[in-house]
């Protein structure tokens, strides 16, 4: 457990904004207003309040909290380097809002679930996962969908059918790129897909990709019909995929004439 206090300028150390960081897998008991709970089992060694992550990536246990504020000028006056001590700043009439929190494992800053205690409730402001699509909620805010697919609140539905052959075929590609630098794993779940070789001899496959990483969802060699996936989940290692990248699904077939990937749909995409 570690402590950090951030004071406002209202009469010195009395009143004003006070932030206290607690690292624990369970919510702290007897929380105080503006207490910050970092859901972690790794000891918090240092704290940094910052506009952008990365200054303390190599320090295992270091926590960096990203914020937005009403006035850059007042926030630049803050000393952001401290250890188990007190952080003083001058604000005037400024607001301050935490928007993300990361903890280093010694090599990488990883997003963590983090909450701030406000008026009797823990309010989450940081998540260790990026839920791109979730059944019942649809696409994450800011995303508009995919090429060759439609989205409703429960399912991403591919164009029917997706054709492939000879070579690379129809692809479902995100309209927006997502920065996956902080994530290690992409999970695609609830995948369903049928297939028809349309009388062709073939070697065909459909894959999920995130930037330069991909995994095969299913393969087919039949010239007839088949079920390739039924409520299937696949994962891709994206721990070395950095920056803003496209993601989605690709088809391929060696067939001379196009084969069909039929009724392709899924209901979950998460980066964690």
């Amino acid at each position: 457990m570690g402590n950090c206090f951030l004071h406002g300028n209202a009469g010195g150390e009395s009143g004003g904004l006070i932030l206290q960081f607690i690292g624990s897998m369970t919510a702290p008991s007897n929380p105080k207003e503006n207490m910050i709970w970092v859901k972690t089992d790794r000891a918090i060694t240092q704290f940094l309040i910052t506009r952008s992550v990365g200054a303390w990536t190599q320090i295992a246990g270091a926590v960096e909290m990203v914020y937005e504020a009403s006035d850059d000028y007042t926030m630049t006056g803050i000393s952001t380097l401290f250890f188990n001590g007190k952080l003083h700043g001058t604000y005037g009439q400024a607001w301050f809002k935490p928007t993300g929190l990361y903890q280093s494992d010694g090599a990488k800053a990883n997003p963590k679930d983090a909450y701030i205690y406000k008026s009797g409730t823990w309010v989450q402001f940081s998540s260790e996962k990026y839920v791109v699509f979730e059944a019942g909620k649809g696409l994450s805010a800011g995303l508009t969908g995919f090429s060759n697919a439609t989205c409703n609140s429960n399912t991403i539905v591919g164009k029917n059918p997706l054709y492939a052959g000879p070579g690379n075929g129809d692809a479902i590609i995100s309209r927006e790129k997502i920065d996956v630098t902080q994530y290690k794993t992409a999970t695609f779940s609830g995948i369903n897909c049928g297939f028809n070789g349309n009388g062709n001899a073939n070697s065909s496959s459909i894959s999920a990709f995130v930037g330069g990483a991909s995994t095969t969802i299913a393969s087919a060699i039949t010239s007839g019909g088949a079920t390739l996936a039924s409520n299937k989940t696949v994962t891709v290692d994206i721990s070395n995929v950095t920056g803003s990248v496209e993601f989605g699904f690709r088809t391929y077939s060696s067939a001379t004439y196009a084969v069909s990937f039929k009724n392709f749909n899924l209901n979950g995409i998460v980066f964690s």
Partner: protein
Amino acid sequence: MKTIYLDADFCCHVAPGDGLTAVEAKAFDGKCDAYIEGYRFVPSGKTWVREDGAIFAGEMIAPWKPWDELDKAQREYERQLVAEYEAALQEIEEALGV
């Protein structure tokens, strides 16, 4: 289809060597050696366990070097190829007097 060589951790090599297993992979068709050797290829039917314990089933290809470096290497390779093709085309045109 390209022949690549995998070590015990499924990291790719472009040349055979002791302890390496040869596999055929279309995923690396058209890719330069620097790109290929920055990747891990987990064949279908195999699983790879990342150091944090996460398990990934093949067939999966994923970079083990930073992907932006691999991507830059591949783009430079493709630029060089285009330059070579253009130079060859120019030679042909000159030879034909076109």
